[in-house]
C-alpha cells in the first residue's frame, strides 16, 4: 500500500511517452498506391531499353564478361555504397583512345562509355561465387557531354532495364565475419546522378583519374601497373613516367599512414561535392586529397548551413575529439537530413568511420 507514489510517476511517464510519440516525425504513414488517369507529361524517349542492346557483355549477361572494346578497370579508393561490390569497365569505340592527365579526370573521346556494375556476393567470403547484380550505371560521352543512364537488373539476372525514377531493394548477404547483413538499397533516380557527378554545371565522371588508376592491374597475369597495361594495349596515350604519376592511397591498406588513408577516403567519399566547384561548395569544407588548408579540411571550422546536421556541435573536426566532430556525427547518422554522404548510403560504413575516428584522434598528437 505504501507504493501508491508509483501511480503518478507511471501516469506522468506515460504522458511523456504519449507526447514523445506524437513528436516522432520520422515515421512514414501508409499510402495507397494509385495510378493517374492521364499522363502528367508527354514522353519521347530514344534511349536503349535494355542493357543487352549495348553488347558490352557476352551472354549470359550476368557473368559480366566483357566483349571486344570493353576493358575492366579498378580504383585505389572507391566510394562506399552500402557495402556493394563494384565492377567497372570502360567501352571505347574503334580507334579511340584515352588521353592521360596528371590532374583530374582523364580525357575520353565521344562515344566512350563508363560502365559500373553494383552487386552483392551472397557470401562476402566467397566473392566470386553466387551474386546478385542490382544495377549498371552508364556514363556516355556524346557531343562532348557526359550523359548518365541507369539500368536495373531483373530478378532472373538475365538483363537490366532502363530506369529513370530509381528503386528501392532489400538486399541480404553474409559479411566477412559470417554475420548475416541486410540493407535497403537505393538505386538513384536520374537527377540524383547529378548530385555527385556535377562539376560546375557539367556532368563528369569521378573515378578515372591518374591517381585512382595508378595501381596494379586486377586481371593481368603480371604485376603490371594499370596505367602501363592500358598504355601497352594502345588505348591510353600520353602517360608520364612512373615517378611523375600521382597516386591515391588505398584507404584500407594498414601499411599506409592513417592520415594518408583518411584523406584518400574523404577524397573518394566526400570531395565530389565538397570541392570548390562541387554542389557543396557553399559549405566551405573542401576535402580533395590535395587540399592543404587544414581549416578548409574542417579543422576547427564551424558549419555554414548545416542546420540540424550540426548535431549541436561547433566544429567539423575537433582534433583529438572525434565525438565532438560534426564530420563523425554525420558519418555515423543514417537520418537522411543528417547523414553524409546525403545519398548512396543508408547504413554506416563502420570501417570507414573507424578510420576517420582514428585520424581525428591522431590529429591532436601531430599538432
Amino acid at each position: 500500500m505504501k507504493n501508491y507514489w508509483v501511480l503518478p510517476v507511471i501516469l506522468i511517464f506515460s504522458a511523456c511517452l504519449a507526447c514523445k510519440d506524437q513528436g516522432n516525425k520520422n515515421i512514414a504513414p501508409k499510402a495507397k498506391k494509385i495510378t493517374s488517369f492521364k499522363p502528367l507529361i508527354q514522353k519521347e524517349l530514344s534511349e536503349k531499353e535494355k542493357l543487352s542492346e549495348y553488347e558490352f557483355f557476352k551472354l549470359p549477361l550476368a557473368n559480366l564478361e566483357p566483349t571486344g572494346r570493353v576493358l575492366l578497370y579498378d580504383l585505389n579508393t572507391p566510394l562506399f555504397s552500402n557495402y556493394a561490390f563494384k565492377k567497372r569497365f570502360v567501352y571505347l569505340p574503334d580507334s579511340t583512345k584515352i588521353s592521360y592527365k596528371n590532374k583530374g579526370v582523364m580525357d575520353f573521346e565521344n562515344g566512350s562509355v563508363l560502365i559500373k556494375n553494383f552487386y552483392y556476393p551472397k557470401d562476402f567470403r566467397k566473392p566470386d561465387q553466387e551474386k546478385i547484380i542490382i544495377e549498371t550505371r552508364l556514363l556516355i560521352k556524346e557531343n562532348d557531354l557526359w550523359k548518365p543512364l541507369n539500368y536495373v537488373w531483373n530478378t532472373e539476372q538475365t538483363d537490366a532495364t532502363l530506369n529513370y525514377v530509381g528503386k528501392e531493394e532489400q538486399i541480404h548477404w553474409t559479411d566477412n565475419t559470417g554475420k548475416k547483413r541486410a540493407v535497403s538499397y537505393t538505386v538513384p533516380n536520374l537527377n540524383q546522378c547529378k548530385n555527385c557527378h556535377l562539376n560546375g554545371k557539367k556532368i563528369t565522371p569521378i573515378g578515372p583519374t591518374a591517381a585512382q588508376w595508378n595501381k596494379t592491374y586486377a586481371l593481368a597475369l603480371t604485376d603490371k601497373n594499370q596505367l602501363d597495361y592500358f598504355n601497352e594495349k594502345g588505348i591510353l596515350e600520353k602517360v608520364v613516367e612512373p615517378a611523375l604519376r600521382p597516386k591515391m592511397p588505398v584507404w584500407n591498406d594498414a601499411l599506409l599512414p592513417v592520415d594518408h588513408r583518411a584523406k584518400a577516403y574523404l577524397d573518394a567519399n566526400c570531395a565530389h561535392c565538397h570541392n570548390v566547384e562541387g554542389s557543396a561548395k557553399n559549405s566551405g569544407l573542401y576535402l580533395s586529397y590535395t587540399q592543404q588548408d587544414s581549416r578548409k579540411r574542417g579543422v576547427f571550422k564551424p558549419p555554414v548551413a548545416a542546420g540540424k546536421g550540426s548535431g549541436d556541435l561547433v566544429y567539423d573536426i575537433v582534433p583529438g575529439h572525434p565525438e565532438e566532430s560534426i564530420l563523425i556525427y554525420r558519418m555515423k547518422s543514417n537520418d537522411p537530413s543528417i547523414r553524409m554522404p546525403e545519398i548512396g548510403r543508408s547504413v554506416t560504413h563502420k570501417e570507414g568511420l573507424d578510420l576517420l575516428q582514428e585520424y581525428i584522434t591522431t590529429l591532436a598528437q601531430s599538432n
Partner: protein
Amino acid sequence: MKKIIIILGVTLLLLILFKTVESDFPEYNPNRSYVDLEEEILEAFILAKDSATIELPEGHFLFSQALSIDGKKHITIKGKGMDKTILSFKGQTKGAEGVLVTNCTNFTIENLSIEDAAGDNLKISESEDVTIRNIRSAWTGGVSTQNGAYGIYPVLTTNLLIEGCEAIGASDAGIYVGQSSNVVIRNNKAFYNVAGVESENSSAVEIYNNEIYENTGGLLIFNLPKLTVYGKNVKAYNNRIYNNNLKNFSVKGSIVSGVPKGTGVIIMATQEVDFHNNTVKDHATSNLSIVSYLVFAADEDPEAQLDQSIQDRGIRAVESDYESDTEYNAYPGKISINNNTFDNKFWFPTFSNEYGWLMLFKNKMKIPDIAYDGILPEGASLQDSEHKICIGDNGVFNFVFMDAANEFKYFSNEVTPYLCSLN
C-alpha cells in the same frame, strides 16, 4: 482511500503542470489520407522537357524521396490549390528536401502544399526568373526542433516573386530568401516558425502586405558574414507583424537560435533598409531592433549573464570571424523607420532573455518599440553617413539607444539625434 484521493489529486496537479509546461507549442493538424503516385510524379519531374507544364491532380501524395528538377527552362508545376494538392514527404528516406529546383530559368510553382520534408520543404537554388505562388509549406503536428529548417527557401536566385504563400512550423525560417537579388515577397502568411520571414544577404528586396504572427521572431533582415554575396536595399512596408512570442525551437548553433522570443523585427548588419507603413505590435522582447552582427551573435546563449554575454565571449568570437571577411560590413546603416504603427499588449518585458532584464532595469520596465544597439566600427561615429539611422513619424513609440558597445553606459531614450530623413 484518502491516500488514493490525495495521490490522484497530486497526479492531476502534476499532469496539469506538465501540460502547461509542455504545451507552449501550437500544432497544425490537417486531415490527411495519403495516396502513392510517387513514381509517376517523380518521372514527370525528371523527364519534363523545357517549356513543360506539370499539372498535378487533387490528392494527398506521399513521397519517400525529394522531387527534383535541374537545369530546365520554362517549367511550370501546378496543383489544384493549396488545400487540394498536397505533396507530403513525411518520413522520407532519401534526400533532405521536399521539392528541389536547381539551375532553372523561368520556373513557376503554384497552387499546392508541400509538407513534412526532412530538411527544407521547397528549395530553389541558382535559378532565374522564379515565381512561387499560392504554396503552403508546413510541418504538421506540434512545432518541434525535429521540423525541417526552411519552408520556402530560394537561394542564389535572381528575379524572384513569392506571393500568396503560407509558411508554417519551420524550425528555422518559414520564408527564407538567401543570397538573392530582385526579390518581391508579398501577400504571404507566416506563423509557428522560429523566424517568420527572413531576407538574408539579398538585395533589391521588397517585402509588403505580409501577415507575420506567432513565430519566435517575425521579420528578419539579415546580412551574415562568409557567404558568396552580401545584401542591401531592402524595403518592407504594409506588413502586419504581431504576437511573435513563440518559444525558440531552433537547433542550437543556428543563427536564429539567437533570436529571442517576442521579437517583431530585426534589422541586422544591413545597409539601406526602408521600413515604413507597417504595423508591429505585441512582442514581449522588442517590436523592432536595429543591430550589428556583433550584438546579435553575442546573444547566442540566452542563459548567459548580461554583463559577460556581450563583452566577453560573444564579441571576441564574432570579431575574429567577421574580420577575416573583408567584404563584410557587420553594421547597419542608412536605415529609415517611418510611418509605422507600434503597439504592445504586454505590460512588462519578458524575463526569458537578457534583453527583457535589460529593459526591466534600464528602460523603466517598458518594452522598446525601436531599439538600436549603437555598436559602430572603429573610426565611425553615431549618425555618420554610413551608419545613419533615421526615425520618422511613427506615432507614439518607445525608443531605446542601448549603447551595447559600452556596457549600456549611455543607455538612452532620447530619439532627437535620430529624427532625420535619408534623402
